[in-house]
């Protein structure tokens, strides 16, 4: 299997877990979690230097998921990396769980910043990148923004500052910022609520090198991250064109699925689609894939509760 093939399989497994955990939670944000998961998988399993046994390792690379409502995607990546057991994923949003509805740095080691109050993550990521430079650390910082999120003014304060911050001795070229441009926010399409275009020109005019990619193409993501890492003197901005709800036909490009969890029967249909199994072949498939069968049985049991 190629590296991309391996990452592709991981991304598919993470998508299944996202659907599973949101259905158990009974609330949450599937659309943005499914649009961002390929970006997270490419970073976390393609290049991230970290140690789940030592979440406070000073020289670890950091992921700041500024669009905190997509944290189910991050939780699936963290569980798979070994920060906590995968079984814990279904405690999402439950009383006493460290898997809070939005990221809580204190509750869950491995979460780098409390986010979810939109617009704050880029500033934090800039500060981290600067602090790492001051400490002469080789670590990198990855910050993922939502498209609706960058309507927040603080993002533009940070955008204006970041290419100049720390210059000339400590430039933030250890910072890669990725926009999950899925074109949909809570109320409606971004272009209808408050259009961001011309997006590339805006960030370029603030002094950022800007790359544009398909945010579901793992090879393109990897290449862009390489290019960002090779860039000296300034942080890099990557516009990742994505599809909200990617991988589940009835969720794709539908604002309805920004902040609504699937019902168990919808979840099972979604999982089947993610795994690329036809309706006719589904019961046979479940006899061969034990892990998925356990997940599906759990979801069916949920329906009866």
């Amino acid at each position: 299997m190629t590296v991309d093939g391996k990452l592709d399989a991981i991304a598919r497994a993470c998508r299944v877990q996202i659907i599973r955990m949101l259905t158990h939670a009974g609330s949450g944000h599937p659309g943005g979690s499914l649009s961002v998961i390929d970006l997270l998988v490419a970073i976390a399993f393609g290049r991230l230097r970290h140690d789940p046994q030592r979440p406070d390792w000073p020289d670890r690379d950091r992921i700041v998921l500024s669009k905190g409502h997509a944290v189910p995607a991050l939780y699936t990546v963290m569980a798979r990396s070994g920060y906590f057991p995968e079984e814990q994923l279904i405690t999402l949003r439950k009383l006493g769980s460290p898997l809070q509805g939005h990221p809580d740095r204190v509750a869950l080691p491995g979460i780098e910043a409390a986010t979810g109050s939109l617009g704050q993550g880029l500033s934090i990521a800039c500060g981290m990148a600067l602090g790492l430079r001051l400490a002469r650390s080789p670590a990198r910082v990855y910050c993922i923004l939502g498209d609706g999120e960058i309507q927040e003014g603080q993002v533009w304060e940070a955008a204006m500052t970041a290419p100049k911050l720390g210059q000339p001795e400590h430039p933030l070229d250890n910072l890669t910022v990725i926009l999950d441009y899925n074109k949909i926010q809570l109320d409606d399409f971004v272009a209808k609520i408050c259009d961001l275009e011309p997006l590339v020109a805006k960030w370029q005019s603030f002094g950022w090198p800007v790359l544009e990619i398909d945010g579901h193409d793992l090879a393109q993501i990897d290449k862009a991250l390489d290019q960002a890492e090779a860039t000296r003197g300034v942080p890099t901005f990557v516009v990742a064109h994505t599809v909200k709800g990617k991988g589940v036909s009835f969720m794709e490009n539908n604002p309805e699925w920004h902040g609504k969890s699937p019902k168990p029967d919808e979840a099972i249909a979604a999982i089947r689609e993610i795994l690329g199994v036809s309706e006719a072949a589904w019961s046979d498939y479940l006899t061969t894939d034990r892990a998925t069968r356990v997940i599906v049985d759990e979801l069916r049991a949920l329906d009866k509760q």
Partner: protein
Amino acid sequence: MPAKATRAAFGEALLELGARDERIVTLDADLSKSTMTAKFAKTYPQRAFNVGIAESNMIGVGAGLALSGRIPFVCSFACFVVGRFETIRISVAYTNANVKIVGTHAGIAIGEDGYSQMGLEDVACLRALPNVTIVQPADELEAKQAVAWAVEHQGPVYLRLTRQNLEPVSPADYRFQLGRWLTLRPGTDVTVIASGGTVFNALEAAKQLQADGVSAEVINAASIKPLDEDTLVRSATRTRHVVTVEDHSIAGGLGGAVAETLGEVLPTPLKRLGVTGFGESGDAKGLYAKHGLDPAGIAASVKKFLNR
């Protein structure tokens, strides 16, 4: 010691501490000449960051620096920095980031610039946030100690500082401790609790009251959150009358904190002196007189409160 603004003492302390501790960095939003970090920035240009007039970003960058091992002092006027409450709430308090928020130009004492530049609700806002401690020094000595303490303390701190010069009130051997108040003048009839810019006036008021036969105990409440419950309750048990004096809105500040504690622990007649409504332009002396925060005003309020 001559009178000195606590912001000036802060700037001097930071310069000195910065020589010993490489982790200390400053962030400003185009007010470094007013927050007094300018000398630090000149001495340690690689550790001083002026992000422009963008306080939310300044606070967030500070949080990120704290999360990668620096000790950031995030500085602006009290009203501007605390005005970015939501960023403080999530990026600093909820994250428990080791950020030192410095709010200068506290209160109506800034005078002529008027209400928009006055920090009058900052303590009320930040008292509501878990993890955040609030310290307001009353003179140069206490300010310098509070800055040194803040460097050592793990967790978010809010330092509330004055633009105006403050007369010294602390004894030479004073050591600032979080959650500890200092009784500056013993008394038996009433407990007067002041903080920051009003401490000296409270002491002067106590002298006037003495001449009128009223024995006022004066306490410097530098540690606003947590407050010193032991000292408060011990004093209130003896005097049975408490007056708070602060250059801050009477809602939610030191007076509010004292009211909450006394209400639960030792219900005691309480008079809160502070700013009501918005501030306005004027000379600082005139504004203090108008709001009853000058020595004569404090003494008059205490006498009225005691029915004397």
